[in-house]
């Protein structure tokens, strides 16, 4: 493949200061377009290059995506190493700082989310590497005085006839070469790493305990802060016992921030800060959610369904002229959910004469730089955001509330301050997966298949929350999964309603699909049940035969040896197929009742078609992890609001699955030539939906509200 090269405008190359390295840094044309967000690029002298190859043949590669467990940095390294001709295992991955050069091509801002890392960078990442390879080839040809097509680069070695030399021997000369006008990307048959199950490059540091998470940042003279936020969202502090807090040895200061909505205690160490915070005992009043509880919130969503919503076009529908035999009404509810990342929210900030430095486990470098600039009253280009490893993200760290807090606290000190949230603060001040209520009205014909299929859904919006859009803005994060599935639903209609009750919300692994897959697939389960049809056959009756939906569904049914939803006494099976984030995933979940009449999940089959993959093993792990997160949430998880505040506070009342609950999970990848799809999130929605089907088959009662257990 011969392609136009990356914009030569803004292409910088050079010899690394004093090191004789080849350094390449440039903006990609699609990224260089006017950015969605302000340019928040740092002017920090720290290298903001894509890659640096030293004369010693060390290759430093800046991963543009945050690493939160989803394996994106290793997957991108596969793309990069293959096109450069580097030895994958020898790549040194550098965490990104804030720079518009690393803007996610899918969003035009520097943010990791939407399962976009591999699909958005699939081509640009390889172009960067191929450009460097071409310059090294030019240099090697010139130095050895041979034709360029006689030279190859593989596993870090420049090869000509029977001789081979390390890449580093040519970097000084390569740095003087013109940037090529066009480059050639490798053919698929020549891939050494792409599509192969390469080990993760961060496994060793994470197994030795040396990987640096945000929590682990240590700087000279650093202080540690912890925070108490108003339990009722938006409330402000009335009174507190500042003297008692300051009497705790090691406590330096009490700082009221966010216009009184939060109070931070700053000390020499976390335990001192936490002890101080307990002694401080701040009392808050007022707040946006004052008086609300879960039932009132559900009613608020129900009321919205009766008002004026936004009509959304359903992609696949048709008119059928069959007489209506039966009317069906369904209502489904999905609760607020916490992300509960293992690493509680934290950020270290240092406000000094030359600007602001931030060390943060963030998914959103653009947002982090913007709020830091705002909090410290500096220009965004005076903010440097150092990204650390993220102890889980799942969407939570796309919000930058904790970054703004850390910087605001740090403005009161000359030294760096690390803000650490307690688990209780993390659980009660998450930005939650929105509560959603859906009402479906379906008319079926004598054959049990739909004639009309009317869907209404009310929820808050993660997108509107992140982008600070008006309270009545309606967007796909509310209804995705209802308008864009593969089923041809006769007479389908969809109306979406926004509810914005000021409980903070954001993206939770698979976003809208984490509710809508359950809503839609459960409707099909109930319709199949009432029609006396097998849930698989019912789905196949609504799916075009030649589709990626039908293909994964058929494959998973075959893999699971599907013989119906009720394979035996005290057993149930559920099946679901969902497209999300560009990938098609079908799953079968097997459940049974254990001796204590508790639901036990025994086995999960998963077939995924996510197009071409950078690293199929990482895809498999993400499917497993996504399935486990989905099953746990659907079975046990709920965030309740009582008197305007969150009831749950820690893992004793926000249960997660642990080892003893994990079913055997079988994952099969479809060998696909399609464009790469996402894989961090698409495993989750069908797991929730198939579990609902399995419980319905097991108990005879189809669940209509998550969570199903407890």
């Amino acid at each position, binding site marked *: 493949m011969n392609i136009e090269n990356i914009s030569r405008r803004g292409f910088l190359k050079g010899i690394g200061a004093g090191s004789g390295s080849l350094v390449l840094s440039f903006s990609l044309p699609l990224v260089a377009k006017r950015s969605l967000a302000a340019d928040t690029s740092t002017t920090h002298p720290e290298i903001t290059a894509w890659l640096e190859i030293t004369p010693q043949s060390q290759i430093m590669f800046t991963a543009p995506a945050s690493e939160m467990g989803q394996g994106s940095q290793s997957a991108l390294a596969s793309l990069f190493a293959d096109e450069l001709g580097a030895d994958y295992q020898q790549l040194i991955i550098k965490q990104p700082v804030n720079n518009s050069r690393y803007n996610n091509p899918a969003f035009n801002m520097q943010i990791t989310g939407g399962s976009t890392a591999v699909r958005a960078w699939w081509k640009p990442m390889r172009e960067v590497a191929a450009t460097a390879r071409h310059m090294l080839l030019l240099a090697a040809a010139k130095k050895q005085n041979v034709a360029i097509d006689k030279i190859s680069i593989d596993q870090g070695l420049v090869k000509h006839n029977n001789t081979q030399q390390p890449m580093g021997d040519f970097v000084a000369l390569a740095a003087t070469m013109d940037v090529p006008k066009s480059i050639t990307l490798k053919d698929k048959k020549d891939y050494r790493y792409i599509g192969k199950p390469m080990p993760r490059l961060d496994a060793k540091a994470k197994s030795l305990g040396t990987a640096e998470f945000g929590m682990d940042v240590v700087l000279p003279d650093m202080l540690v802060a912890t925070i108490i936020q108003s339990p009722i969202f938006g409330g402000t502090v009335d009174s507190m016992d500042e003297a008692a807090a300051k009497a705790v040895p090691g406590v330096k200061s009490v700082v009221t921030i966010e216009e009184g909505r939060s109070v931070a205690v700053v000390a020499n160490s976390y335990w001192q800060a936490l002890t101080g915070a307990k002694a401080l005992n701040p009392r808050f009043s007022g707040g946006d959610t004052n008086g609300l509880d879960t039932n009132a919130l559900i009613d608020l969503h129900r009321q919205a369904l009766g008002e004026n919503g936004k009509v959304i076009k359903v992609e696949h529908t048709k008119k059928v002229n069959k007489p209506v035999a039966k009317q069906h009404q369904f209502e489904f509810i999905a609760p607020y959910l916490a992300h509960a990342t293992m690493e509680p929210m934290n950020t270290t900030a240092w406000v000094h004469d030359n600007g602001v430095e931030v060390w943060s486990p963030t998914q959103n470098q653009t947002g982090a730089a913007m709020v830091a600039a705002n909090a410290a009253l500096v220009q965004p280009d005076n903010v440097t955001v150092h990204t650390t490893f993220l102890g889980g993200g799942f969407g939570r760290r796309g919000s930058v509330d904790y970054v703004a807090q850390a910087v605001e606290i740090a403005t009161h000190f000359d030294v760096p301050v690390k803000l650490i949230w*307690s688990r209780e603060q993390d659980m009660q001040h998450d930005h939650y997966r929105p509560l959603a209520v859906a009402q479906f009205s379906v008319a079926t014909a004598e054959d049990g298949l739909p004639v009309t299929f009317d869907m209404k859904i009310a929820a808050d919006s993660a997108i509107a929350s992140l982008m600070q859009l008006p309270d009545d803005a309606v967007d796909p994060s509310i209804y995705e999964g209802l308008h864009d599935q593969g089923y041809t639903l006769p007479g389908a209609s969809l109306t979406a309603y926004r509810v914005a009750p000021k409980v903070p919300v954001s993206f939770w692994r698979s976003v809208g699909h984490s509710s809508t897959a359950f809503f839609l697939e459960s409707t099909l389960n109930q319709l199949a049940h009432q029609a006396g049809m097998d849930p698989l056959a019912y789905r196949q009756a609504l799916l075009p035969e030649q589709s990626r939906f039908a293909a994964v569904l058929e494959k998973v049914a075959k893999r699971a040896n599907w013989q119906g939803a009720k394979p035996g006494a005290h057993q149930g099976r559920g099946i679901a197929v969902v497209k999300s984030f560009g990938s098609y995933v079908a799953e079968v979940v097997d459940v049974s009742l254990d001796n204590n009449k508790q639901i036990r999940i025994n086995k999960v089959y998963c077939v995924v078609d996510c197009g071409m993959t950078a690293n199929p*093993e990482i895809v498999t792990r993400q499917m497993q992890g996504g399935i486990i997160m989905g099953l746990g949430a659907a079975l046990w998880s709920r965030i309740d609001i009582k008197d305007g505040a969150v009831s749950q506070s820690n893992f*004793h009342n926000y249960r997660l699955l*642990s080892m003893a609950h994990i079913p055997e999970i079988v994952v099969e990848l479809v060998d696909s030539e399609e464009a790469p799809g996402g894989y961090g999130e698409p495993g989750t929605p069908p797991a929730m939906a198939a579990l609902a089907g399995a419980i319905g088959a097991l108990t005879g009662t189809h669940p209509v509200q998550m969570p199903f257990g407890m």
Partner: protein
Amino acid sequence: LTNSPAFIIGNLHKFAYYPIIIPITTKQNTKEGLMLQHYTLNVNGTTHSVEVAPDTPLLWVLRDSLHLNGTKFGCGIAMCGACTVLIDGKAMRSCVMPISQLGDKKVTTIEGIGTADTPHPVQQAWIDLSVPQCGYCQSGQILAAVDLLNHTPTPSDTDINQKMNNLCRCGSYPEIRRAIHHAASTIKKENTTS
């Protein structure tokens, strides 16, 4: 009240799905409880002196005083296990172990079981199978597995279910299980050859 750490820790036995026993009696929030005191502790074979309040959990002594940051803070109430260390060889939750109760017991952290050049067989199994996703819980998982294998050299899946109750939000459980079996066979081979 039911959300206070003291209540939760006092009632942990009621949360049957997390079979943990934790010692906890401190003088928290009394004047004596707050005063800084000198303690010496043995971590990874080295003796350290620290000056902290008696109720300071071992976790925060390790992290904030000794900068041994491989041990992680997850929940503060002994539920998640991210803070797991070995105390006299036994896997314990360091977030609820007050320094005043440690005495002369020997502490082993993730930094103390292996190095980059010579990882512990359990760490090596974790590396070989690329177990970690976000990785935040894995120090604790690894130390829990070390304790398990010390007492049960060839654990069954049921043994693993019973002993491995550390939480992993990424859902790396299937690989943790595989890696424990993998490490068990490596250790067995090493013991036969040596």
